[in-house]
């Protein structure tokens, strides 16, 4: 084969791209639009100003990364609620099993994916933090 053919082929591709619309997204100035099915940071759903979660322990049971901590407690009406609900985002693998397991539609996954942080503790999402994500 002519030793120049591959070089010419390569340059042709380069030339092609010079006249195409660039695919690079100018993140962070330019933000992606995530699909509704995107599996990002969790959020706890609310109903009547209260977390819907009834602390059934199904999500911590099903979670393959074992990153969910639930501690149930009894409220004044003898009802069950999650006194502690925490997700360790360092360990979460965003599989979405928790959402699927929840019998009361108390947890969903949002489009939020910017989860970087400076300190390890900040990756622990407590009930309050998860509830804020309306």
């Amino acid at each position, binding site marked *: 084969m002519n030793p120049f053919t591959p070089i010419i082929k390569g340059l042709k591709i380069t030339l092609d791209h010079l006249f195409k619309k660039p695919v690079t997204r100018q993140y962070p100035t330019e933000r992606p639009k995530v699909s509704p099915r995107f599996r990002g940071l969790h959020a706890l759903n609310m109903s009547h100003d209260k977390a819907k979660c*009834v*602390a*059934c*322990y199904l999500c911590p049971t099903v979670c393959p990364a074992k990153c969910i901590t639930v501690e149930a*407690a009894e409220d004044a009406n003898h009802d*069950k609620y999650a006194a502690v609900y925490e997700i360790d985002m360092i360990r979460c693998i965003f599989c979405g099993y928790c959402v699927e397991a929840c*019998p009361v539609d108390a947890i969903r996954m949002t489009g939020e994916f910017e989860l970087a942080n400076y300190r390890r503790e900040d990756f622990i999402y407590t009930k309050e933090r998860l509830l804020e994500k309306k």
Partner: protein
Amino acid sequence: MVNLTIDNRQVTAPRNATIYEAAKINGIHIPILCHDNKLKPFGACRMCLVEVEQMKGRQIPACTTPVTEGMIVTTSTPDIIKARKLVLELLLLNHPLDCPVCDKGGDCDLQNLSYDYKISSNRFHDQKFQHKIDYNNPLIERDMNRCILCGKCVRICDEIVSFGALTFIGRGIETKIGCEFDEALNCEFCGSCVSVCPVGALLARPFKFKARFWAMEKKRSICGYCGTGCNLTLGVKEGKVLTTVYDENQGFHRGQLCVRGRFGYQFINNEKRLKKPLIRKNGALVECGWDEALQLAASKIRNGSETAAIATPRLTNEEFFLFRKLMKGIGSENFDHAAGYAHKALTSGFARSLGSAASTAMVNDIQKSDMLLVIKTDSYETHPVIGFEINIAVKDKGVKLNIVSDKNGKLGKLPGARTFVHLPGSETLLINALCSSVIKQKLVSSTAASLPDFKEYAKGIEAFSPEKAASLCGISPEEINSLAADFASSKKAMILFPTGVAYPGHDSELATALANLAILAGKVEGEGCGLLCLPEKNNSQGAVDTGFYPTGKGLDALSVFDAIEDGRIKTLFLAGENPVVSYPDEARIKRALEKLDFLVLTTLFPTETAEYADLVLPASSYAEKEGTFTSAGGHVQYFAPVIPKAGDSRTDFEIISSLIKLTGGEAASNPSEIFAEIASTLDGYAGMTYENLGENGAFTAVKTRPALILPQTQAPALRKPEEFSLVTGALLYHNGTLSQFGEGPMHVSPESYAEISRKDASRLGIKENDTITLTSDSGSMQLAARVSLRIPEGVVFIPNHFSANPVNAIWSGKPVTPVALSR
């Protein structure tokens, strides 16, 4: 045996088996909801429907139908599955389906069956139940909305517990399980109903929402309270004991537990548990390291002749054995347990009358007997699960029950049971009268008559003829004669009696008197016969077997306190005991403890006694260690640790082992080696190893050599008319002082009280819960009054478990203490 075919398999089953049982024995699964192998067949749920060819293919319940020869059974056909699905759909019709918040989820028969039979929709529609949930007691939540009316709770409370708190009320769709007049549950709180409920209608409140069933490890252990030796399954999560789990295949009692066993486990993870050794510096207890603590203890106990040790009967056999070695090693003979007198029935009474310090009967003799003679109705309170065995024996097996007691009680309410209420403190006298009556009525067995000491004994016992004894014990000669005849002429008869610190009257003399009765009637040994001593604590029998009591010139526990006062004993080693609260005469115990040069205490909790200690060593509970316990009737059972040790605590085994090394001895470092030594030195334990004890344990071999010995019997002092006779005893909800650290028992029985008869109460104008003052020679105290029908006139009963206001303020260890009572 009967031959039949189940699902095309040729199988055999016992003649009296039901189809369900026959299938189960042969490994064929038939779903059930309302059946329990401990209860009588009921047939309420129709989940177990099967087809029997001989019955023209009709569907019949397997749990109530007995097998017959040649029966051809099919357990699963499309029709049967359809029928079972219908049953489930109808059950789910009004069921709330709140599995996410229901504690039974994951362990629920209804949930599991709905899953197995794929019930994902319902063809029927109706409203859900709207029953009010009973939150009135702290231990059992009753949510009748989830009830499937299987009736198991009703039946277990009646058939086994014999309390009868629950029943069906209402008709048709309105039917529900309720208590008397549909009021709140107020019962023994044994939790048996909770354990058998197939759904989440009855739940243990102390465990509510603590963990899911599947998230817990289920670990076997032995109950650490009384001498019954019930097996436990503990639900453990993250190193904490969260609950007890019902296992119907466990132990002679098939998973049955009493309130202490089921709801009293919280002491294990109680926050008050000691985590670090404490040393007294400048008058205050401060934390220190183990090395320092052990060095100090070793240096203090080194002078054996001035050292004594008293242990709680809750230590393991291995610990007792090692402890004895330590004491012998330092040259001390002064070691004892259980206040020094609570074991005398065995160590002195049985030892001289029967030739060994052990019971001749076992717990499983109870149901095989023809007649039970129970000393004190308190036997139910001290050993509730043995009480269940008695209930079953009487109600199911037709065993006769005779009770001699100083008060009435629950056992006496069993069908056909007779209670002979004697004057307090006259039990030995009464048993002597029974013996004398057996001789008079010529009912003496030939073996007894041929004993060398028979003649002399018969002569001596004449002084206790029923006529003479009657006025002293308050039971008529006719009754004594009839009871004696009843006992001696029963083919099989058994004697049961509790011992314990609260029962000083149950001493060697009573044990000898009872042994005489059994010997005379020829009921010492054999199936359904014998004497069964019910020792107070989980390893009281083991403490005796391993010889942790003084012989020869050693001082017994109470003499140790005398010796402290006159300066002969300077160092005291208390292992787990809390004598300030549980031993007689609080003032004297405190006086002695104050006088001590050095008190070292191993304990789980900072008890009242710890306030006198110079060194407090945090010990581990049974759930944190390995060893064996020997329970009533010589049942040796092995248990392994289920959780890590609390804080820096160490087992008594480790502590004693270190002390042996520090005092120049040699000690095995693990319990199995010591157990091997026990097995090779104690005849009763010969051949036992941890491996062959396995899950079922083994029984100690008992050799008997009956001898008739006349017990020393004192007539109870006649009380002055204005005085009351104080008797101490145990409560159903407690065992020793340990149960005070279990939440469950304290929820239902938080404080001490003085129980008096209704007649006395109305005579003195005392009402329930009035504060009354009791004064004896040794002190005075105030308690809330409890007015009851079971106490005879002139008697006041006070339990001995409570640290707050302990009874030993006025009780000096006599079987009966005269007290003045005022408002």
